């Protein structure tokens, strides 16, 4: 049996009602599954729907279990395994605060430019950068900022969508 641990991005369309996020999160903690990241927001006000994108890890059987367990929650409309069901696009947004002066400050700004990060706030001793893209790119950016005076990081976690014309 395939015991290799793999990462899957799963999109879950849920009824936007009180407690629905607690149900999802409680399922993961109660059954010992991992959450690498989780994002949620309302996506259709009229139909009262929210969309959760979560990245989780486990072997094949665990990933299958996670999807089945999610799907049987009463307020869950649909569960899609984006990793399994074909190509998808994924992105994450991050805000990164870097404090420093002199060469370090100039270097931070130069790297930010390379990463197409935008400056959201600045003082004479700090920047708040905003950047988006693949998680790996953000990891890399944060890594580079560490020696340059990294103070604060805030990330949204992954949002993802299947390529092509079909909806969830």
């Amino acid at each position: 049996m395939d015991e290799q641990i793999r990462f899957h991005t799963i999109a879950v369309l849920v009824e936007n009602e009180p407690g629905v996020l607690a149900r999802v999160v409680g399922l993961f903690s109660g059954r010992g599954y991992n959450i690498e990241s989780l994002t949620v927001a309302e996506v259709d006000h009229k139909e009262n729907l929210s969309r959760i994108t979560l990245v989780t890890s486990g072997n094949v059987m665990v990933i299958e279990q996670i999807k089945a367990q999610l799907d049987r929650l009463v307020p869950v409309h649909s569960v899609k395994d984006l990793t399994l069901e074909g190509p998808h696009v994924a992105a994450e947004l991050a805000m990164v605060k870097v404090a420093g002066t002199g060469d370090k400050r100039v270097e931070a700004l130069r790297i930010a430019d390379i990463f197409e990060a935008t400056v959201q706030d600045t003082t004479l001793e700090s920047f708040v950068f905003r950047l988006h893209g693949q998680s790996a790119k953000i990891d890399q950016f944060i890594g580079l900022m560490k020696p340059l005076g990294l103070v604060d990081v805030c990330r949204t976690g992954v949002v993802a969508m299947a390529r092509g014309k079909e909806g969830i």
Partner: protein
Amino acid sequence: MSRDQMTGSEIVLKALAEQGVDVIFGYPGGAVLPIYDALFQQNAVRHILVRQEAGAVHAAEGYARSTGKVGVVLVTSGPGATNAVTGLTDALMDSIPVVCLTGQVPTHLIGNDAFQEADTTGITRPCTKHNFLVKRMEDLARVMHEAFYIAQNGRPGPVVVDLPKDILQGLGEYQAASKSGHKSYRPQVKGDAGNISKAVELLAKAKKPLFYCGGGVINSGPAASQLLTDFVRMTGYPCTLTLMGLGALPATDKRFLGMVGMHGTYESNIAMHDCDVMVCVGARFDDRVTGNLAHFSPNSKKIHIDIDPSSINKNVRVDVPIVGDVGHVLEVMIKEWKAKQYKPDGKALDAWWKQIDEWRAVDCLKYDSKKDVIKPQYALERLQAITKKRSEEKGDVYFTTEVGQHQMWAAQFLHFNKPNRWMTSGGLGTMGYGLPAAMGVQVAHPDALVVDVAGEASILMNIQEMSTLAQYRLPVKVFILNNEYMGMVRQWQELLHGGRYSESYMESLPDFVKLAESFHAVGLRAEKPDQVDDLINEMIEIDKPVIADVMVDKAENVFPMIPSGAAHNEMLLGPEDRAEHAVSEDGMVLV
């Protein structure tokens, strides 16, 4: 008040009536007083006043399991709701349809640590199939109907509806149940035709086939049990049942191998280990059934029919998964078997049965009888024989149990020829389940004989319900196998912990005969084997609740036994087997 307006409490009761509820089990308190007031002023719904809320949920479970209907509970906020938690978890684990209405403090006080406030939806979220907090009057009727829909559709389970007091007292309009189905919860009932064909073909080609069936067959309704019986007889294949599935196939059927699992029969477990095609119908490869997963039925192709997709491939990889209602799927399978004119491989099947008969000849349930000490197995054999006679003459007999050794012996020695006659706490293993469950069964079947097979430790966990039995004249029989120990704990301590009987002996047990009398019931006692028949006959004849205190062998253990961590073919058949199969270190950490 306009003509269509009614109070929240009236809406609740009207919804119960529309859902066909005729009895609820409950306990009043501040937050639910408006419902109790409305109850007082109507006759459609009967209320059974329990003595503790745990009893209410187990009673509703007993009611549900013996009727196939939804069991309904009404408790107050705070401690009322928290006392119900064990029962809710029990119903979740055993897939029992229960709707539990809990009172709640008024909406404007929620979150204020008000008197008798608890975060009921927060606490019960992981132990219910679904739960609701009704915060708007206009949601009340819809939520009530939805709760019943969810409790009984798909894999059944408990649903909590938390009802703040201001909602119960406010005015609103009633809505009838929607016919259009649920917005997001639509379980798959019909199985995939392709996989069903594949499964039937696999079964037809099997040389050493085995049906392994569980509570899902019972939950699917009596028709599913009939279909299973038809299919088993049509194929002539052997069939084993889980603790939850007893009664799905008549115990008298020669194809029935007995229960499977930790304390199942030798022939069932070895057949499970050696079979080449296993069809799992409404069971879930529970750890009590599979034993060591790495060595579980290593050479079989596995077919799994279950209404809950999350049950499939959870513990054991299966080859042909079929998501759907057991009854529907079995019906299609039988049609397919007939249409394709499949015939079992007669020669292979004969050889398989010959092998099984050799395993049967081991006689794994045999025990040493003693002249002056009652063996628990003997007491149950006599209970089975005498109640069987009674059921032939006077109608149905229902058994419930508590949890422990007596439960396993009851599963081994009582025989069930129909579904819904056996109520036991399988998944959660809740001591204290049997007496209130029996109460619920007796409420549903006033003229039936209802027996709770109990241990003296378990029975004390919900003994207060004896008082409920008296109030409603429910002639439940409590049949205690009294060994003065928490028997299963003692057995594990003997086998796994060097005989250090830490806290498993109960000093100062009550005198159960006097205890019965103080609860307006009749107490009986047997101390010698030759008293057992008289005791059982007397117990059955008395038209009142009875506690029969049967003093049994204190040292008896339940065999056969698959020790935790062991495989099916490493079963202990009796005390003499013990030394050869010491429990592994890996097994020690398992429960």
